[in-house]
Structure formats: structure tokens, C-alpha cells
């Protein structure tokens, strides 16, 4: 018998018991839908975390003091020395403090960051309007400010307000630029800040000449670990640390965090998929159950078919194709349901909808496998029935 004939038989059978077929498929539908949806959620989380982390700056090394500020020895001179090392793209030392900012009568409380002109390169910011700090404004300790997108919006300032005066911590500053928004990364809004020359912060707001962090961008991603080693050696030397002493600073590699985060979310995706596939197995057992009942109920039909010339393998094929039709139809409906659910979740979570053909292929293969694994046994039972007994079965 051709596959087409077998499919025709299976479809006409499913049509005569629609309710039962639908309920049997429901198990597979739920199983496949949850695999597709959960894997897609996992992938969405992964890509969302990766995008957010890389938005913080690629090829970024962050140097910060180990413990607290009392032992902090990081200085502007350290930053200058690092800049002289090979394969360093930019060095941006930072000091930050929280201050009130006023534009006219509108006020907001925000982070004031003192840094150098290399900051946009290192932290991956773009200037939207106006310009960023220059070497001249740094050298002259000019009271100029670049606003983060959120801060500008909070103060009611827009493109036409470049050059306007605002008050930062009680002192007048001139707005020279507004940054492109980066988008929230959850724990801290990277667009809510005011950037001023680092010397200005040291002069008016934070005493001492230590810096909070030094951001370093490495010109070549392949040089990340070499740069880390070079910076560590340089700073140990500059801080007069004995070779046995623990460092009083940390060199933190952004890519390591990225790798760790994606490996965690990938494991999570696998775990979610694994849990979901348990429900697929349960769905398969549902198919097997109904097929066994069906073989019993249709014993007489099997006897008749054998009497009119069906061979064991014809009966086997008929029941197997029925089970496969159930599982494959369920699988296809499950994929559609799963994609709709993951699109909805993606919409709500804001990472959009990513269609993954691999997941769909795996889901189809899985539901076929479920049909075969759980369909073979009942089909063999049917094929082995003795026609005499089967014909007499009531």
C-alpha cells in the first residue's frame, strides 16, 4: 500500500472520531508548543542580555579599586600611563557623584560623571546634538556639560538648547552636547547622567586626586588578555606592590561577563526545553494509550481486513501511520501555538520575536519520533492478531 493510501485511511479514521483525535493530539500540541515557546523565551533572554551587555562597551576593560576608597590608589596619572601601553584604543578615567541639576526652574537629581574626551569611545556612546568634551575643555577645566538623553528629557532640554546654561551642584555650566540614548539596562539607566571634565569634578565636588574607575578600550579584541596582563603589571609597579601582595585594584573584562551570562542563559534554555519535552513524552504516552484502545476496539476490523487480503505489514503500516498522523498534526498545531505564544512573550518582554527554524525542525522531528516510538507497539499488536480470533471478537 502506498503512503498516500495509508494517509487517506488514517485521515478518514480521524474524521470519524474527531473528538478523540483532538484530545489525543492535545497532549502533543501542549508538549510541542511549550518546547517551542520556552526555547524561544530562552533565546530571547540570551540575545537581550548579550545586546545590553555589549551596549555597555565592547572591548572594554574596567579598572576599579579592590575594596573601598580608603585604599584607592587609582589616579589620573595611572590612566595616562595606561594610555601609553600598546594596543590601547582609549582610556577614560571616571569620578562620579550625585548632584542636583537645574535648568531654569526644572530640577533633577542625577549622577555627575567627570571624565575625559575618550569616554564615548570607551563606553560606546554617540553624541546626538552638539559636541563632546574636548582636550581644550579638559585642559582649561571649563564648566561645560554633556547631558545623557534621559537627563536632557528630565530637564526639558532638546536639540535647540545647545549652549544654554544649567546649574550643576549650584555652579553654572554650559550645555555643549546631548548623547544618543542607549536604552535601559535594567539596574542602572545609562542615559541618566551629566558629563563634565574630570578636573572640574575634582576641583569643585570631590576632593582628592583618586579616580573611581578607569575604563580602557582595547583596539583589538584578540589583545584583551594581553592588555589585561600589561595593565596589571604596570599598575602593580606604579602602586609599589610586592610580588606576593594582593592587588589593590581589579581589571574587569567585559567579554568575560558576556561569556558567563550567555553560558548561563544557554544552560537555562536547555533546561527549559528539557522540562517542556517531558510534557511531549506524556503526550506520546497519550497517543500510545489511545492506539492500544483503538486496536482492541477495532479487533474485528483487523480480522476483516486480514480475511480480505491484508498482510501483517499492511495492518502495521495502517496503525503506525494513524499514530504518526496524530503526532505530526499535533506537532504542527503545537508549533503554531508555540510561535504565537513566544511572539506574545517577546512583545511583552520587549525583545521582539525571533523565529528559529532549528527549534521548529527539532519540534517536528521530536513529534515524529513520538509517533513512531509510541505508535509501533500498538501497531505491532494489531499486525500480530490472528484473523480467526479477530473475526470472532465481539
Amino acid at each position: 500500500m502506498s503512503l498516500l493510501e495509508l494517509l487517506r485511511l488514517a485521515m478518514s479514521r480521524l474524521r470519524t472520531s474527531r473528538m478523540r483525535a483532538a484530545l489525543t493530539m492535545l497532549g502533543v500540541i501542549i508538549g510541542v508548543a511549550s518546547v517551542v515557546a520556552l526555547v524561544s523565551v530562552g533565546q530571547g533572554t540570551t540575545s537581550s542580555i548579550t545586546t545590553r551587555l555589549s551596549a555597555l562597551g565592547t572591548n572594554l576593560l574596567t579598572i576599579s579599586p579592590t575594596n573601598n576608597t580608603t585604599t584607592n590608589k587609582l589616579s589620573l596619572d595611572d590612566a595616562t600611563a595606561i594610555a601609553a601601553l600598546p594596543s590601547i584604543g582609549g582610556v577614560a578615567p571616571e569620578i562620579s557623584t550625585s548632584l542636583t541639576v537645574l535648568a531654569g526652574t526644572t530640577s533633577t537629581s542625577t549622577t555627575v560623571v567627570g571624565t575625559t574626551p575618550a569616554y564615548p569611545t570607551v563606553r560606546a556612546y554617540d553624541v546626538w546634538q552638539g559636541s563632546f568634551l574636548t582636550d581644550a575643555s579638559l585642559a582649561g577645566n571649563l564648566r561645560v556639560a554633556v547631558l545623557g538623553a534621559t537627563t536632557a528629557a528630565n530637564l526639558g532640554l532638546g536639540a535647540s538648547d545647545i549652549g544654554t546654561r544649567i546649574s550643576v551642584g549650584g555652579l553654572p555650566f554650559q550645555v555643549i552636547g546631548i548623547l544618543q540614548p542607549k536604552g535601559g539596562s535594567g539596574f542602572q539607566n545609562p542615559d541618566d547622567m551629566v558629563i563634565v571634565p574630570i578636573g572640574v569634578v575634582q576641583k569643585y565636588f570631590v576632593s582628592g586626586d583618586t579616580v573611581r574607575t578607569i575604563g580602557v578600550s582595547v583596539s583589538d579584541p584578540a589583545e584583551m588578555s594581553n592588555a589585561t596582563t600589561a595593565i596589571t603589571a604596570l599598575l602593580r609597579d606604579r602602586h609599589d606592590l610586592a610580588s606576593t601582595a594582593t592587588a589593590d585594584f581589579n581589571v574587569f573584562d567585559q567579554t568575560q561577563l558576556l561569556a558567563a551570562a550567555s553560558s548561563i542563559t544557554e544552560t537555562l534554555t536547555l533546561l527549559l526545553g528539557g522540562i517542556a519535552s517531558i510534557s511531549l513524552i506524556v503526550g506520546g504516552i497519550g497517543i500510545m494509550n489511545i492506539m492500544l484502545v483503538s486496536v482492541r476496539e477495532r479487533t474485528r476490523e483487523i480480522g476483516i481486513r486480514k480475511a480480505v487480503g491484508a498482510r501483517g505489514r499492511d495492518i502495521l503500516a495502517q496503525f503506525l501511520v494513524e499514530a504518526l498522523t496524530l503526532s505530526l498534526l499535533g506537532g504542527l498545531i503545537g508549533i503554531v501555538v508555540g510561535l504565537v505564544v513566544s511572539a506574545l512573550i517577546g512583545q511583552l518582554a520587549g525583545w521582539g520575536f525571533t523565529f528559529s527554524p532549528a527549534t521548529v525542525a527539532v519540534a517536528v522531528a521530536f513529534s515524529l519520533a513520538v509517533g513512531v516510538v509510541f505508535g509501533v507497539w500498538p501497531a505491532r499488536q494489531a499486525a500480530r492478531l490472528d484473523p480467526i480470533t479477530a473475526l470472532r471478537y465481539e
Partner: protein
Amino acid sequence: MTGVASDPAGEPAGDPAADAIISLDHVRRVYDMGHVEVPALDDVSLRVDPGEFVAIVGPSGSGKTTMMNIIGCLDRPTGGVYRLAGTPVADLDDDGLARLRSRTIGFVFQSYNLLPRTSALDNVATPLLYQGVSRSDRTARATAALERLGLGDRIHHEPTELSGGQQQRVAVARALVTEPALILADEPTGNLDSHSGADVMAVLRELNASGSTIVLITHDPEVASSAARQIHLRDGRVVS
């Protein structure tokens, strides 16, 4: 009674003519009931030639059903040789039996044994399905068979929408659609009222008249009287 078996039912052993449709040579069928062996058929020999209309008659327990199963290739003898259309069935495996059945025999059962929730047309076409006949040929041949039995206007009806007599005529159509060498009818009138029963018997006589070989198995002497030859079974043996 007409056609009382005048010739001996048992043919001379060792002379299974190649052109006989059915040839049983000292066939035994013993059921193994744990410790006891029950012989259902005991040393039965007979032959049926093409074009014959033979009734196998006997009370219940005489071995009729076993005979039917063996002739129908649903069961194998435990001793002796059975040849169907010249093929010794002992040499065949289950698939071989199924193929032989499919090519050679059309069954008519007492309880019709039509596939439920399946139209008369698809029921009649089912044997052709297992012979690998194409769908359009199946439909044409099944329609022709149903029309031959006067059911041309019922081809899309399901068994539950047909009377007993009509169902049995569908079953007869299914038996003859493959143009088998032999139509094997097991109590074909057993579930029918006398009118429908006579109708089905008339159909069988008509088929025989147009060349079909028919073996009828029944307990009812009146039904058996339709046949040209009667073989009487008692306690697993041919008595006349």
C-alpha cells in the same frame, strides 16, 4: 432434496488433480487444549472442481468452522495436505497465506463483517486496496460489483444505513470484486429472515451459473439444498 452427494466426497488419495480448486488429502486439525488433544477434523479428503457449487453441511460441533478456516487459509492443517488452486498451503508463511487468500478467495460471513462507518463502495473496494489496485480502478470495479448485486443506488451508504439483506449483498459484492477462483460462504443466511436469505441464496446460485465456484458452509439442510453437491460432516469426519 436435490443434488444429494452421489459421488464419494473423499477423492482417491495421492491423486490431487492439478486443476482442482480445493484438494484436501487426509487433512487433520487437532486443537491442543493443554493436556487433551481435540481433533476437530479427522482424516478429511475431498476435492472441489472449478464451477462447482458445494455445500458442507453438519450440526454444530461437526468441524464445519474448522473446515471453513482451513479452506479459507485462515488456519493450517496439523496433518495431511491442503492444496488451494494447486498451491500447498503448508509451504506458505502468514504473508504468503494472506496473498493467496487475497488472490483466490472471496469470503461471505454469517455476520456480514463489513467495516463499520465505511461506505458500501469502500467496503467492496477494500480487497482491491490490498492487491495494489489503483484508486480509480478500485472505484470502477467496486461500483460494477455493487451494481451487479442490485445495489447501484446504495454505494455511498454505510452498513448501518442498510438492511441485513443489503449488507449481505454488499459482502457478496466484496467477495466477488477480486474475481476470485472460489467464493467461500459461511452461513450466509444465518442472520437473515427467510425472504432475505432466499434472496442471497438466489444471488449465489446466479453467480455459480455464471461460472463462480462456490463453497457454502451451513447447518441448515434447506439452505444446503441449493448446492449441486453436499458434503456432510459429523464429528470431524466426512460421513457422506
